């Protein structure tokens, strides 16, 4: 089989992989913030409900969540299933929002209360305190765990093949039937390069925030 065919197939799969990654990140990052506010709420029912949600999502396999979201509507109430790709994005977004929310919560709760109080006695509004004082300190704190989680997300995209979304591993695997194992190794290289780039970006960001402690 010509190498160009393999390359074209893998690139198409990699495109899908990138799409799952980017859309999930773009949706889960802000949604996670909303969830983290819920889990820090002073209103107990909301806090308990949010924490239960986080427990369920983090405590069960993403693969299972995808299966439920994709097959659930048809099997449970004979509804129409979401398209494969949308089901994947939905499951990934919910799952990663739960993980991100815990990282955010740790970051926000890690900023000493004295920072907030110092802002208050200097006559700042709560909004000013959040944007001018707290935010950057939170970003600095969450950067290492976030980079970890985001690199995991890159690799987790391969779970999409469970509901036949043709991401790069699924495409590479299809060559196995023809007796070719090398495409799987090439696929591995794609992941390594992608995560290498992410690692460099996060390293730069951490360095940029190293000027304060």
């Amino acid at each position: 089989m010509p190498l160009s065919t393999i390359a074209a197939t893998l690139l198409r799969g990699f495109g899908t992989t990138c799409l799952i990654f980017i859309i999930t990140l773009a949706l889960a990052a802000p949604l996670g913030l909303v969830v983290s506010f819920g889990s820090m709420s002073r209103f107990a029912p909301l806090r308990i409900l949010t924490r239960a949600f986080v427990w369920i999502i983090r405590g069960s396999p993403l693969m299972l969540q995808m299966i439920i979201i994709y097959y659930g509507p048809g099997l449970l109430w004979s509804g129409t299933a979401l398209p494969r790709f949308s089901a994947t994005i939905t499951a990934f977004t919910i799952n990663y929002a739960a993980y991100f929310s815990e990282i955010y919560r740790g970051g926000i709760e890690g900023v000493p209360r004295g920072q907030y109080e110092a802002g208050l006695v200097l006559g700042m509004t709560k909004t000013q305190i959040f944007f001018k004082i707290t935010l950057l300190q939170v970003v600095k704190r969450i950067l290492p765990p976030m980079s970890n989680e985001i690199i995991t997300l890159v690799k987790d995209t391969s779970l999409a093949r469970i509901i036949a979304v043709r991401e790069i591993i699924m495409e590479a695997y299809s060559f196995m039937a023809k007796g070719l194992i090398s495409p799987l190794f090439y696929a591995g290289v794609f992941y390594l390069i992608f995560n290498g780039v992410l690692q460099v970006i996060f390293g730069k960001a951490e360095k940029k925030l190293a000027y304060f402690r």
Partner: protein
Amino acid sequence: MAILEVTGLNKSFSGTAVLSDVGFSLEKGESLAIIGSSGSGKTTLLRCLNFLELPDSGKISVAGETVFDSSDRSAVPERELRRRRLHFGLVFQSFNLFPQYTALENVTLAGRLLARENPGYPRRRAELFAEIDENARALLDSVGLISKLGAYPHELSGGQQQRVAIARALALSPDILCFDEPTSALDPELTGEVLRVIRSLASSHTTMVIVTHEMQFAREVSDKVIFIDGGAIVERGAPEDVFGNPRHERTKRFLERYSG
């Protein structure tokens, strides 16, 4: 008229009384030292003055203006609360400088944000900021840190950080400057530089309320002393009297422990 008038202040945390019927007054230019053992309610008192805690009952007025009155149940809008807060400045035990800003930025930040509320703001922005900057530089100079304007908090010693914090609190020209055990988090060899700054503020008649464990310092620097025990004022008076000739048994015992 007294610059600060506190009457009948009560505060309890989940059933435990932390302040009971605390009242005192302070004249402009005076400094008041509050002494007492840990957990006696000194810090809570300061936090009530700065609206970081809400007293259960009592009244606080500054220069005749009531800034807190528990009998008045009407809600205070945030803007008004912030304005009232600015009567007071607070220097924390643990400095609480903003780590991502330089010494100079720590001192100018709040002023720059407040300048936005100035009616001529967008137009006079450059002029206002220049004033704030100049004032901040002068203050940092007066606390001996003109060479550290561009340093970040983690590059400064504890004593230097606390001096930046004092400059930061002074930058908004509060009527009353409060200190919450300003040297308790410092290594002993660094307390001197901070106490020197506070002493010079006292000699230039800055109105101050100082919670401290440094008895010798309290005696030198204050015009009035209050001894708090179990949330209540046990003894008050001129420093010579409270330190030299305490009337109450509890004050005597406390002072003995500290001089020993």
